[in-house]
Every structure is written in structure tokens, then in C-alpha cells.
């Protein structure tokens, strides 16, 4: 009735055996792997190298009785009807796994739609296709999943490029950084500077008191937030440790075995890993080693390597290294802004996984990370109630494998240990918005798409997305797993990187503060405190830091040279603020670094006050760029210390 041919009754393994493409042993091994880890037999055979992808699909074509076609060649010859494909989004076709390539409506005889498929289509599905296209029959041809992606990429190129760059701005411009600062945001700093200058002329004392007091307040608020979050994180850690010990004790008392991983391989979902890389030919070859160490069934890994079209060197390096079958290379078409979030948005369209995560090419996630995240999501799904915001993203901790490479990397490591191991867990417990880190943020794919994904106009798209998740009523959690990254080891590069980050925080703060009252109503006081104390407070604290650090000098010069008579509360309060704030940051950051690494790294927390001077330099650069080049992306070079490894990290 609908033109579907009957299937070959032989199984795919038998067909491959009959064709002499695999041996009985290879088949049995693949079947054993399938029993253990689930997934399709074909993928196991391809991943094990028993057959080539093309050979597999030719065999499937025989089983499905649907002739194999070279879809890419058909497209190049103009034999694929693009209009049919453009009726739906690229994501839809990738998810369906088949493409309509032609509709024929002869004057005489039945009409039909030709469908190139990568999956076995059931009769019911075929009936729907027939109905959908208003034809009499469906004629199936077989193609590979890679060819299907390439053709979708080719035909949907314009839509994909537009979507990657403009989807968020076109659907909700107020959530995007595309327009930068609005009028009052641009005017505010200018007015502030003008007021200070005028005040300094007419009443230097009041102006000095006001400026110094505000600088101290900004610093105190930001440091206070970080310290309190760290305290909360410490309580959480202690509580969890006690709980785990008690559970362990109870198990021993009752003679119960220790639980093993609660999700069997068979039930693990497909996991998409996005790896954006630009001009990283030097480290891209490490990718396979790093991701290959993940303890997750390879048949359920969907690694998308996102390369820019003009990056010939990295593309060549990837081709030369012949990545395994679970790694796909996607070439992102040129277009502006040429940023990491744009590449990720592009890749997201091709993601097949239930969950999606971003890693950098040099990242070394702990092997259990994906499983831990799946378990966290599944347990949330089981417990989810209406009172709690849904968990949309899980952030893993980022730490550095080259922590003791030089002083800068040590300071960076101390900072990250405090941020990810101490502060974020505390914020997770508070259920306040969490600004995401650059990588290792794991999303529910569908929910990420619904949120509008990453804002390519925001240079810290990760932090922005964390806040947007909160705005949209979702929640970010953290997972106790580490991704080892490479810390920037050179001061000029570090300053550029940090300039981008701080500028991104400024932009994220500005975007979310466009309608502050509405934001407050939507996110409540804790969320508002996060926005002001952390997102907006961090850049402000760094901008104010020279005033705070130099407080004693400034007040001394002010009193003795200019003759300012500063009030005691300001002199004493400012000095205590500077000393206490720095001491607290040193203590908490040092403790976190000691736990994560060792005392040799932790002791460098003592240099935190100097490290913050670098932050301040970056903050002032960022403030300048906010006005004159808000979307400029200063790329951080990677691979400078790729071969180096902190001895303390190896043992972890």
C-alpha cells in the first residue's frame, strides 16, 4: 500500500558474515559488548574497527531492502530537493535520522517520496511520511549518518549560520548582549566620573570620603559573598562526608554491600560532547586520549569536534589523526561573530545526545564524570517536585593539571580551587544562580535548545547562560568531579583572557540589569544578591581594588600632603577591610587549594593580594573594551604547557 519493501529476515550480523566482511569472532565480541553496554550492534562493529561505516550501511541497505545511495553525490548533482528539507529545522532531521530527497507526482500512476534513511523505518513511521507529503508511496534508500549530516549542513547552511549567531537575539533581544550597553548603562559611568571630578574640585574631602567608602563597600560586598559561599560550601562538604560515613557505618552494621553505580551501561543515554577548537592543531591530537579515558560506553558517545572553516591547520591535523568513529568533525561556516558560543550553537544543532557537555580540546575530565552527571540528573528527575526549580545544568569542577608550572599557574590554581571546590558548592546549596565555568557544563539537550543556547555576542557566554537559566526558572547544580585543564601560564595572555572574562561579567550584569526590578521579582532576593554581589560585584571589586589596596598610602598622602582630614571610621574601617578581606580570601582559597592539591600550591594563596592587582589591570582593560569593543574575543593560547603535569595531579 505504501510501497515499503519487506525486510530481509537475516540479522545484520549474518549479512556481514555472508558478505565476508566480519569473522564469527568479531561478531561474537560485538554481541558481547552490546549485551554489556547496550547500543546498536552496528556501532559496536564500527567502533571495534571490524567494518567500515560505508560497508555497514551497505549491509543495512541489503537488510532493509533499500538501495544504498551516495547522498552527498546526489546533493552535489542537484538530485536532492532542498525545498523539502528546508520545511523543517536541521535539528529535526538529525533527530529523525532520515531525509526526504525527492517527491515525484507522475500524471499517471502512484506518487511517491524518496526518503534517504539511516535508521530502520517501521511501517507506521512510513505511513506518517506518506501522509505528511501527500503521496501514495514511500521509496526508501539507505545512506550513512555522516552523509545525512553533511547534506543537512549543506542545505540548511544559511539557517544554521543564522541560528548559531542570531537565534537568541532575534527571539529575545533583551537576553542577548548583541546591542551591548543600553543608554543609561553607557551614561552611568560617564556621569560617575563627571561627578567625581566636579566633586574633587568643589569639595575634595567629601568626594574622597565618598569614593573611598564606595570602593571599600564594593570590595567588601564581593569578598563577603565569596567568603560566605565558601563557608556554606565547607559546611556542605563536612555534612556530606558525615552522611556518607554514617551510611557506610549503617551498611556495615546491617551487613549490606556497598552500592555500585546505579545506572547500568545499557540504560545510559547518548551523550553529546561538543569540543570547539580554533587554531589548536598543536593540542587537538590529545583530544582522543583525553576523551578516550572517559568511562562511558563509546557507542553512546557523540563527540562533535567543532572547527572553523578558515582553520585549515587544525582541520588538517584532525584528518591526519584519523579520529575514532564516535568523533565527528563539523566545519562551522564562516560568519560573525566568530566566537566559541557561535560554534557551540552550530554544533548543538547536530547533537544526538540526551545530554550535552562542552569540553576544550586539552581538557581531561575525570573518567566517571559523565556517569556522575547522568546519575545526578536521574536522581533529580526522581525527586523533582513543583517547589524546586528544575535542574537544567550540572557544572563539574575545573582545576589545573599544570598547577605548579609557574607562579601564575599556582595562583590561578588557588583561585579555581576556591571558586569550584568551595564557592560553587555553597551556591548550589543556596540554590542561587551559578555562573557557569568555561567548560564541563552538562545540559539537558532539549532544555538547552529551549533556552536559546549560548549568546555568541557575550564573551563569557557560560556565565551568561548560568544567569539565563535562573531567569528562565531553571537551576544549575554542581557535581563532585574534576576536569583538569591547562592554566594560562603567561602574564600577557592571562591578562587578555581575564579581560575577556571580566568584560563578559560586566556584559552579563548589564544584560540582566536592563530591567532590575523585573529581574528581582523573577529571581527573588538570593538571585538578586548573586547578580549584584558576584556578577556585577566582581568587576567592580577589581576596579576598586587599587583604591582598597592602596588605602593606607592614599589616606597617608591625603592626610599629610593634601591635608584631608579623613574620619576615623573610614581610616580604621578601610584598613580593617583591606586586611580582613585579603586575609579571609587567603584563608579560604588556601584551604581549598590545600585540599585539591597540596600545601605547596596552597601557600601561594599568600600572594593573592598581588594576584588581584593583575585582576585589576584586566578589569580596567575590560571597562575600556566595554565601551569600544564589547564583542572583541581575545583568544587564550593553549598547549603552551601541555606536556607539563603537576606531580600532585597525577596522583588524583
Amino acid at each position, binding site marked *: 500500500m505504501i510501497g515499503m519493501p519487506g525486510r530481509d529476515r537475516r540479522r545484520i550480523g549474518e549479512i556481514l558474515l555472508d558478505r565476508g566482511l566480519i569473522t564469527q569472532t568479531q561478531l561474537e565480541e560485538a554481541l558481547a559488548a552490546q549485551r554489556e553496554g547496550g547500543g546498536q550492534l552496528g556501532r559496536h562493529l564500527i567502533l571495534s574497527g571490524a567494518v567500515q561505516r560505508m560497508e555497514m550501511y551497505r549491509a543495512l541497505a541489503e537488510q532493509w531492502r533499500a538501495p544504498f545511495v551516495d547522498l552527498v553525490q546526489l546533493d552535489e548533482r542537484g538530485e536532492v530537493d532542498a525545498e523539502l528539507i528546508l520545511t523543517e529545522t536541521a535539528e529535526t532531521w538529525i533527530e529523525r535520522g532520515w531525509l526526504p530527497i525527492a517527491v515525484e507526482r507522475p500524471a499517471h500512476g502512484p506518487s511517491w517520496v524518496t526518503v534517504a534513511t539511516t535508521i530502520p523505518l517501521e511501517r507506521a513511521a512510513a505511513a506518517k511520511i506518506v501522509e505528511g507529503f501527500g503521496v501514495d508511496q514511500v521509496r526508501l534508500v539507505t545512506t550513512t549518518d555522516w552523509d545525512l549530516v553533511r547534506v543537512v549542513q549543506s542545505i540548511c547552511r544559511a539557517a544554521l549560520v543564522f541560528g548559531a549567531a542570531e537565534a537568541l537575539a532575534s527571539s529575545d533581544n533583551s537576553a542577548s548582549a548583541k546591542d551591548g550597553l543600553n543608554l543609561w548603562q553607557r551614561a552611568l559611568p560617564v556621569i560617575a566620573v563627571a561627578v567625581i571630578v566636579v566633586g574633587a574640585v568643589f569639595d575634595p574631602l567629601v568626594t574622597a570620603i565618598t569614593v573611598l567608602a564606595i570602593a571599600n563597600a564594593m570590595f567588601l560586598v564581593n569578598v563577603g559573598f565569596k567568603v560566605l559561599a565558601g563557608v556554606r560550601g565547607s559546611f556542605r562538604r563536612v555534612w556530606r562526608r558525615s552522611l556518607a560515613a554514617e551510611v557506610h557505618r549503617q551498611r556495615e552494621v546491617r551487613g549490606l554491600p556497598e552500592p555500585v553505580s546505579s545506572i547500568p551501561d545499557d540504560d545510559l543515554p547518548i551523550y553529546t560532547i561538543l569540543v570547539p577548537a580554533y587554531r589548536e592543531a598543536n593540542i587537538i591530537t590529545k583530544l582522543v586520549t583525553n576523551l578516550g579515558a572517559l568511562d562511558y560506553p563509546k557507542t553512546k558517545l557523540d563527540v562533535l569536534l567543532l572547527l572553523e572553516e578558515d582553520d585549515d591547520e587544525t582541520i588538517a591535523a584532525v584528518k591526519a589523526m584519523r579520529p575514532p568513529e564516535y568523533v565527528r568533525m563539523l566545519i562551522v561556516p564562516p560568519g560573525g561573530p566568530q566566537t566559541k558560543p557561535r560554534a557551540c550553537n552550530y554544533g548543538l544543532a547536530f547533537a544526538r545526545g540526551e545530554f550535552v557537555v562542552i569540553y576544550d580540546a586539552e581538557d581531561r575530565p575525570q573518567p566517571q564524570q559523565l556517569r556522575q552527571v547522568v546519575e545526578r540528573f536521574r536522581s533529580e528527575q526522581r525527586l523533582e517536585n513543583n517547589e524546586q526549580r528544575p535542574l537544567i545544568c550540572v557544572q563539574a569542577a575545573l582545576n589545573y593539571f599544570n598547577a605548579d608550572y*609557574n607562579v*601564575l599557574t599556582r595562583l590561578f590554581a588557588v583561585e579555581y580551587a576556591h571558586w569550584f571546590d568551595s564557592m560553587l558548592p555553597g551556591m548550589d546549596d543556596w540554590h542561587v544562580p551559578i555562573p557557569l565555568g568555561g567548560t564541563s557544563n552538562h545540559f539537558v539537550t532539549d532544555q538547552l535548545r529551549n533556552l536559546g543556547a549560548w549568546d555568541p555576542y557575550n564573551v563569557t557566554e557560560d556565565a551568561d547562560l548560568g544567569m539565563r537559566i535562573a531567569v528562565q526558572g531553571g537551576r544549575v547544580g554542581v557535581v563532585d568531579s574534576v576536569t583538569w585543564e591547562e592554566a594560562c601560564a603567561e602574564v600577557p595572555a592571562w591578562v587578555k583572557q581575564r579581560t575577556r572574562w571580566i568584560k563578559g561579567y560586566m556584559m552579563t550584569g548589564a544584560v540582566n540589569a536592563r530591567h532590575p526590578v523585573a529581574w528581582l521579582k523573577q529571581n527573588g532576593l538570593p538571585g538578586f544578591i548573586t547578580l549584584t554581589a558576584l556578577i556585577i560585584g566582581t568587576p567592580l571589586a577589581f576596579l576598586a581594588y587599587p583604591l582598597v589596596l592602596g588605602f593606607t598610602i592614599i589616606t597617608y598622602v591625603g592626610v599629610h600632603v593634601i591635608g584631608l582630614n579623613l574620619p576615623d571610621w573610614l581610616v580604621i574601617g578601610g584598613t580593617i577591610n583591606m586586611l580582613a578581606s585579603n586575609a579571609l580570601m587567603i584563608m579560604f582559597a588556601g584551604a581549598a587549594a590545600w585540599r585539591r592539591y597540596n600545601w605547596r600550591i596552597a601557600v601561594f594563596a599568600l600572594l593573592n593580594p598581588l594576584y588581584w592587582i593583575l585582576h585589576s589591570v584586566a578589569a580596567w582593560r575590560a571597562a575600556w573594551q566595554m565601551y569600544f569593543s564589547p564583542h572583541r574575543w581575545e583568544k587564550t593560547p593553549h598547549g603552551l604547557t601541555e606536556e607539563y603535569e603537576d606531580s600532585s595531579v597525577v596522583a588524583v
Partner: protein
Amino acid sequence: MIQAEAAPGRFRAAWAALDAPATGRRVPGTLIVAAIALIAGTIAAFWSIGTDMQFAYADAQSHLTIARRIFDSKAPGFTQLGTVWLPLPNLLLMPFVAIDWLWATGWAAALLGIVCLVATASASYRIAARIGLGRTARLVLVGLIVTNPSMLYVHTTALTEPVLIAFLTASVAGLASWALSPRELSAGEMMVFSGAPAAGAVLSRYEGWALVASGTLFVIIVAWRRKRSLKHVVKLASAFALWPALGVLWWVSYNFAVYQNPLEFLNGPYSAAALQAPVSESGFLAYKGSVGLTLWAYHWAIIGTVGAVTLAVAALGLIALCARFRLETRALIVWLLATGWAFSLLSLYLGQTHLNNMHTMPTNWWNNRYALVSLTWLAMLCAVWIDSCLRSRRARRLGIAAAVATIVAFAGQLAWSLTDLPGRSAVLAEGAGYLEIKHGNGTDAGARYLGDHYDGGGILMDESAAGNAVLPQIGVPLHEYFNRSTGPLFDEALRDPAGHARWIFYTVADAPSLSSAAVADQVYATLLENPAVLAQYEVVFSEGDIRILRRLDGS
């Protein structure tokens, strides 16, 4: 059973670590050496405090006092650091002297001293490991440091040498790590691991200033050898010199801010030059301007503190060093340790330092502890000698015999020293002499009397006067005192003692040769000028040179 088996295993591992090459940042065996130094320092501290030797040197008590009066004084604040001594040792003492008992017993200084001894021994060991010396040589090196009676004693006091030697050695260890690292270490690491300790040395004693020069020269040579790039050389030399330079700048600024004279420490009334002037004018600095007498005086000081055997073996080690390492980086590192030795000689030659022993004129014990700054260098040379003997291929047996003989000689030197500590160590002899004087002239008894009988009220005392530096021994909180460090309050109290002080403590020993403004007792001078004051007080203690008065009204 398991523990019994594990202990030999741990011992074997420790023994192996002491011979392991230094690769990367970690130097195996450092913790073992630190533990040995900790034990040695603790034993020495118990001995010194048990025999009251920790307070023998007046300067030691002065440092404890300065550190305390920063926060415990009628005029507290960082200006209490004064300008006589560089500030870091006193600043480091601060957390320790904050605890009354630690301050009054001298344990505050001993604890800091133990930390310094651990740092010095560990850093020396790390240098030896980095330049490739073997286990025996390393152990000899550490042994010479942690069994030297003079060294151990000084580390139980608040004298500033321990802090200087620790920072100096740590800085050289940092430079050795940088110079011999297979991976090029960054300028930032240079600043932290070499520059920061050098700044510590700079702010501890003026010998540290010489390290800035010698260390920078070392960095220039090694950096140039590595890359032959001027930019690289300038970058690394700047990284090394930045913190010490800032230290110097800060000290000069401090002098300017507090005394309106950036060189107050050099030419002010309390400077070494001012204190040395009467001695120099009396013709007692015979070595000033004489190379021969300088070498003679200083090396006798070395013999009196470091030991004759050590000095002789070090001379052999110097020959071995030149023959074996020539001008290699490893040799330069050892030479770097000679900075303190070179500075001391220069200082003596220029008449900036006053040092007496039994081979100078006059013959007494004075400042021989300055020779201790040479100990790490001399011990390292001894270690080089031992290592060279043991590595000798041509005459292996002879080499082993020479090494064994040397070690036996060291052991004999130590045993000989232990039989009569004050008699064999110039530093201890000087300390014992002071102790004897303080017992004889009533200072000890006076301090004890005031400590025991003090029942409130202000104390007028010129603690800067010769023999009066006993405030820790007295143990009364410093905010009760009117003394020179309280500035105008002291002047007011001198004008009207009874209106301010219930107690007056002074010394009548105002030797004419010492009667400069710096060391003469101003309280005694005031009482001589205005004897009517005495009518308002009763003499409650009078022994030797010390007098203690209590106001008659009893209020």
C-alpha cells in the same frame, strides 16, 4: 608484626632518599633533614633557657623588647622598630612575643630560632643535593650546621643572625633550583623562590644587601650562559633584584618618614658608625684598612665559632671545588654562599664592624658571632671535599680513607667542644662573660627583684643604657614603662619622675668610655642633675650598679 616489618622499610626509604638526586622541585630527604634540625634546635633551646643563656646578650633582650613594644607600649606602632636594626627579625618575633610567657622566658626567640635552623639546614641540604653531592657529603654538611655549638646557641636567642642566615641560604637554594633546573623556570618563580628570601635577608641584616649584588651577578652569568639574550638576562636579573630593591627602598623611605633622614640607619646617632666612633677613635679597630689584620681577626673568629678543623677541611674543599667544578654553575652556587664571608671581611676592613677575640687588640670576646654567616659556605666546602674524596676513581681507597679521617676529625672537634662549651666557643664565651657581669653587677638580681615586687604603677627606666636591656627578664608589660622608645613621654617623665613613675630603675655604671648619648643612662644623669627627686622615692634595691626606687606615697 606489620609495624615491626614496616619500620626498617621506612628507614631504608629514608636512607635512600638522602642519596637520591634532586629532580624537579622536590628534593628527597629534605623532611628528614628538617626533622634533624628541629630536634637539634629544640635540645639547644632547652639547654640555653635552662641555663639563662638565652638572655646573656643584651641585644637579644633588646630584640625581644622591640618586637613586643610595637603593640605593647605607651607609644605603640611600627615606628617602634627604630632604626638601629633592620626590621624583619623583630617583625617575625611579633607573633611569638605576643604571648607573655614566651616573651618573658625567651622561648619566643628560641621558637623563631628553631624555625630558622630548620630552614637553614634544609636549604643547605637542598643546595648540596642540587649540585650533585652524595649522601655522606650531605650528611656531613647538615651535621656541621646542626651540631655547631655556636650556631645552635645563637639560634636560641633573639639575635638577628639566625634570620639572616636562614633567608640567605634559602635564597641561594632558590637560585640553585633555578640555575640547575632542566626546565626553564619563570621570572615569577625567581621572584618568589629567590627574590623574596633575598628581600628577607636584606631586611634582616646588612650582610643581606651584599647578597643582592652577588645574587644578581650570579643570575646575569647563568642567564647569559643559557640563552645569550640580553632581554632574558635583564628580565631574570630584575626578577631577582626587584623584591630586595623594594626592601631597601622601603627601609630608606621608612627612615625618611620617621627620622626625616633617609640614611638615618647609616649616619644617625644610633647607627653602627656612631656607636663605633669612640672605639675607632680610641684606636681599637686595628684591622681597619689592613688586609692582613682583617683576615687574621676574622678567621680567628671563624676558628672560635665554626672550628679549626672545619676551616682547614673547607680549605681543602675549596681546592676540590676549583679542581672539580671549575667555573661551572655548580661552583658559582657554592661561591654564592661566600657572600656573608666576603661582606664581613669588607666591613671589618672598612671599620664598619667591631670584632675582638684573643688574637686582636684588645683581647676580649666581642661580636665573634659575625663569623657564623660563613658557616654554611664552609660546611658546603667540607661537603664538597668529602664528596670529592669518595668519588675519587684514581685512588679510591685513599679517597675513602681521607673521607673517613675527615669525618673522625669532625667528630673529635665536636667532642672537644662539648667538654667545655664556653671555653671552646667564642660566641658562648662572650655570652657567658655577659652572664657573669650581670650576675656580678646586680642586673640579674635587680631584674628579678622588680619582676617579683612590681605591684603596679609606671616605671621610669632608660632601657637603652648599657646593661639595662633586661625588660623580658623583668617581665612587666611594656606599656608600664617610660623609656626612650616612648619619645616625648620619656622626656616628660624625666622632667617630673614622681608625677609619672612609681618605680625608677637605673644603673650607676656610667663608664666614661661609654658615655655617649646612645649608651649613657639618662635616668641616672637626671637624678644626678636633680637629686631632689630622690626625696620622693625610697631605695628598695641596691646591688652592684643597679638601683631601684619606689615612690614614697605608695600610690
